[in-house]
């Protein structure tokens, strides 16, 4: 198709623009709309089923103040400090998560997807280094449809299937964004008093052990678009050096195995050894990065394949598991059945997932640097969910998303009107973002993406050195030179082409941050072979990235604990 001939440009004004309508974005839209703001939400998919939990989810981390000493805010923040030392300010987590938690739990019930069981109680489990049963296991298969209905019911303008590609700025403030409809090619110019980035983490960035790059743990359509837009506009990012990994079934990157460990699943190697039970004082319930680190060691030393063994689970847990395994990934029961697996009778082979840009723990994030009010370092810009550096996971998206929405609405109220973008510059931007569609010849996005994934895995992966990272950055720079030579055959490929651009830029940010941090922290998420120890004297804090004269500039921001 010749997009240039059929495309229309639509102009919309709103108090608040939310980029990304996943779990965080949908909660942000609710937070802003319930404060009276006019809201536009744009998403590449349809908000009822988009993002990491579009098909369902089964876990939410919370302290519930039900009595035990570990079930309090203080104990929770101690846990954050222990597993995430040097990766997040407790004061920000207190504001974005702890202070919002009660309201978040009530809100999920209010919209029709409570976190309780049918009898009104919470089903709680413990893993990942928690001092008590912080995971609430629940049926979240209708959570996104319920949120979608709530967002539309509040009168928000929802732009489904609209990919945002750039932010508008005016005199150093963010004043909205630009995007295109992936089916019609129409362009949207959204002018807003406040803009919230809620585009998730970055996937499809590392070589995938399951061959297909779209067979990822988290949503493969989350490609760091928002982080890149924010960085380009001048916002600071942090914690970008952490390459997150997790443990998943061998052939299918399905989440849902968290629950197995919480209920008593054990990690087993091919010599019949329960390797976490000898490798870590907390055993199978050690922090996630430790479990991944030890599993990588098992595989590296030839003790694979590795398995999760659920044969010892109690009958109560096994029957709960049978009913709930499809909550986190709707198709996981189909997969296990078609593969001939039975959790109750034999161990299931697992492996370490692909790498991704995401927070170093379940309680500290990676991405756009935010303060106690979810505000980024540019006026008018906010961030939440996995795209923000102090938000992570389901619990972070629900609490921090709503907080970002409220803060954005408050900011919007201080402004009379949104700044207007010059129409000439809009026209130029539209032509630039549509250009891959009009090229007669060029590289398909997959060719560039495959190279990015290989470079990232080989040079900015789980074992890093100064020389290796520099080599990776050189190679990424070579690819950057051909980004403008990609060709898209249709609008779907145009979307993927823009995603490829985001991937490359996220990869570069990760490389620069990983090079700068001369220590190891939360291994294997940032493991420097030339600086293998964690150095809390020098490096207890955030590596902050900013764009300066077109380059990635790194600085260090210490975190002080009381």
């Amino acid at each position: 198709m010749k997009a240039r001939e059929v495309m229309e440009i639509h102009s919309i004004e709103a108090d608040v623009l939310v980029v990304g309508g996943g779990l965080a974005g949908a909660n942000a839209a609710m937070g802003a709309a319930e404060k009276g703001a006019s809201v536009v939400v744009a998403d590449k998919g349809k908000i009822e089923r988009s993002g990491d939990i579009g098909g369902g989810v089964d876990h939410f981390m919370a302290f519930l103040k039900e009595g035990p000493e570990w079930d309090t805010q203080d104990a929770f923040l101690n846990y954050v400090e222990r597993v995430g030392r040097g990766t997040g300010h407790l004061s920000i987590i207190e504001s974005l998560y702890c202070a919002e938690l009660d309201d978040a739990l009530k809100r999920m019930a209010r919209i029709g997807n409570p976190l309780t069981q049918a009898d009104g109680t919470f089903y709680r489990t413990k893993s990942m280094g928690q001092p008590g049963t912080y995971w609430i296991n629940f049926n979240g298969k209708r959570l996104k449809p319920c949120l979608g209905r709530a967002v539309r019911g509040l009168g928000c303008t929802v732009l489904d299937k609209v990919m945002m590609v750039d932010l508008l700025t005016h005199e150093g403030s963010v004043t909205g964004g630009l995007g295109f409809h992936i089916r019609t090619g129409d362009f949207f110019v959204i002018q807003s008093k406040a803009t919230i980035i809620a585009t998730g983490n970055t996937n499809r960035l590392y070589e995938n052990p399951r061959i297909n790059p779209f067979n990822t743990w988290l949503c493969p359509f989350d490609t760091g678009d928002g982080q890149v837009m924010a960085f380009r506009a001048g916002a600071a990012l942090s914690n970008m050096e952490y390459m997150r990994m997790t443990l998943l079934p061998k052939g299918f990157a399905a989440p849902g195995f968290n629950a197995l460990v919480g209920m008593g699943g054990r990690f087993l190697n091919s010599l019949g050894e329960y390797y976490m039970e000898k490798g870590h004082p907390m055993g199978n319930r050690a922090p996630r990065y430790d479990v991944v680190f030890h599993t990588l060691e098992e595989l590296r030393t030839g003790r694979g394949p590795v398995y999760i063994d659920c044969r010892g689970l109690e009958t109560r847990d096994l029957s709960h598991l049978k009913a709930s395994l499809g909550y986190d990934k709707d198709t996981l029961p189909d997969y296990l059945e078609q593969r001939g697996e039975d959790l109750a009778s034999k161990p299931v082979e697992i492996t370490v997932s692909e790498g991704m840009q995401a927070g170093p723990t379940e309680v500290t994030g990676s991405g756009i640097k935010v303060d106690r009010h979810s505000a980024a370092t540019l006026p008018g810009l906010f961030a939440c969910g996995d795209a923000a550096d102090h938000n992570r996971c389901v619990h972070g998206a629900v609490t921090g998303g709503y907080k970002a929405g409220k803060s954005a609405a408050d900011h919007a109220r201080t402004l009379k009107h949104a700044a207007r973008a010059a129409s000439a510059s809009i026209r130029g931007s539209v032509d630039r973002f549509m250009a891959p569609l009009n090229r007669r010849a060029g590289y398909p996005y997959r060719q560039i993406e495959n190279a990015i994934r290989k470079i990232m895995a080989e040079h900015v992966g789980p074992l890093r050195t100064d020389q290796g990272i520099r080599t990776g950055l050189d190679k990424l720079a070579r690819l950057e030179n051909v980004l403008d030579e990609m060709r898209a055959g249709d609008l779907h490929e145009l979307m993927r082409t823009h995603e490829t651009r985001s991937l490359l830029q996220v990869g570069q940010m990760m490389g620069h941050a990983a090079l700068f941090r001369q220590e190891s922290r939360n291994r294997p998420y940032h493991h420097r072979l030339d600086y293998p120890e964690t150095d809390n004297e020098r490096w207890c804090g955030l590596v902050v990235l900013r764009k300066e004269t077109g380059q990635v500039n790194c600085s260090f921001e210490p975190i002080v604990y009381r």
Partner: protein
Amino acid sequence: MPPVFDSEACMGCGTCEDVCPADAIYMETINGEQERPYLKYPDECWHCGSCRQDCPEGAITIRFPPDMLSI
């Protein structure tokens, strides 16, 4: 290549196309009149199961490809 569409049970409502987060499902016209879904980008399916959950006719099953079932 999941999902698999049962074209007898399908009423052509387009819900699966609408909710697919991969933009992988498209509708096509069969026999000059009926609208039916097809998987245009099978490699990009995330197996999230949204199409199956939301199909009002229960016309979608999930069949995993041999690489995912064997490696």
